[in-house]
C-alpha cells in the first residue's frame, strides 16, 4: 500500500536527480526510471557529495594558489547551492513520506 501512495513522489525524484547532475556536471544517467525511494535519494545525495567535493578541491587549489579567488568562490557557491537544493527537497520528500506513515489505518 505504501508503495503505491509513494509512487508520485518517487516519480518526481528522477527530474531532481537530473537537475542535481546538471549542477555538478557529472555524467548524465539516462532516466532513473522506477527506482525506489531510497535508491533515488542515494543517487541525489552522492551527486551532492561529488559537487561538494568539487568545491573542496577548488578550495584546496585556491589555497595552493593554483586557482583564482573567483573560481574558488564560484565552485564553493555551486557546491553550497547543490547541497541546499538536495537538503530542501529531501526534507520535503521525507516529510511527505512521514505524512503517509502517520496515516491512520
Amino acid at each position, binding site marked *: 500500500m505504501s508503495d503505491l501512495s509513494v509512487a508520485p513522489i518517487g516519480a518526481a525524484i528522477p527530474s531532481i536527480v537530473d537537475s542535481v547532475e546538471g549542477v555538478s556536471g557529472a555524467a548524465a544517467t539516462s532516466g532513473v526510471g522506477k527506482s525506489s525511494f531510497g535508491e533515488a535519494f542515494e543517487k541525489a545525495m552522492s551527486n551532492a557529495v561529488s559537487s561538494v567535493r568539487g568545491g573542496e578541491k577548488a578550495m584546496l587549489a585556491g589555497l595552493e594558489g593554483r586557482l583564482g579567488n*573567483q573560481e574558488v*568562490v*564560484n565552485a564553493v*557557491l*555551486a557546491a553550497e*547551492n547543490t547541497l541546499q537544493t538536495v537538503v*530542501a*527537497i529531501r*526534507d520535503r520528500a521525507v516529510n511527505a513520506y512521514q505524512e503517509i506513515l502517520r496515516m491512520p489505518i
Partner: protein
Amino acid sequence: MDPIDATMKIATSGMKAQSMRLRVVSENVANAASTGNAPGADPYRRKTVTFQNVLDRKLGAEVVGRGKIGTDKSEFRLTYDPSHPAADGRGYVKMPNVNTVIEMADMREASRGYEANVTVIEQAKAMSSRTLDLLRD
C-alpha cells in the same frame, strides 16, 4: 543549464576580466618611472587590455574571454636630465607614456566593474535561496 548557475559563472568571468584589468593598471603604475639604461633607449611602454565576448557552449551564454594585452603606441614624454644614464646626446630622457591620472580612472573603472559583478552574484544567490525557501515551512 540553470540560468542562475549560468549567471554565477558569467559574473565570475566578468570578475576575472576586471582583475586582469587591475593587473595591467598596476603594471603601468609600478613602471611609471621605468626608463631605459642605455643612452636614447626606450622606456617602459604603457600596456592596454581589451576584452572580447566568447560564447561558452556549455553555458550557452556569452562570457568575457581572456583579456588581450596590447601596448599604447603614443609618444614618450621627454624630460631634460643630462645626468641620467638614458639621456641622449641633447640631454633628454624618454619617460614612459604612462599617465597616472588615466591609470587611476582605469583602476576605478575596474573596481566598479568588479563590484557590479559581485552584486550580480549576490542577487543570483539571493534569488535561488528565496526559491528554495518556498520548500521550507
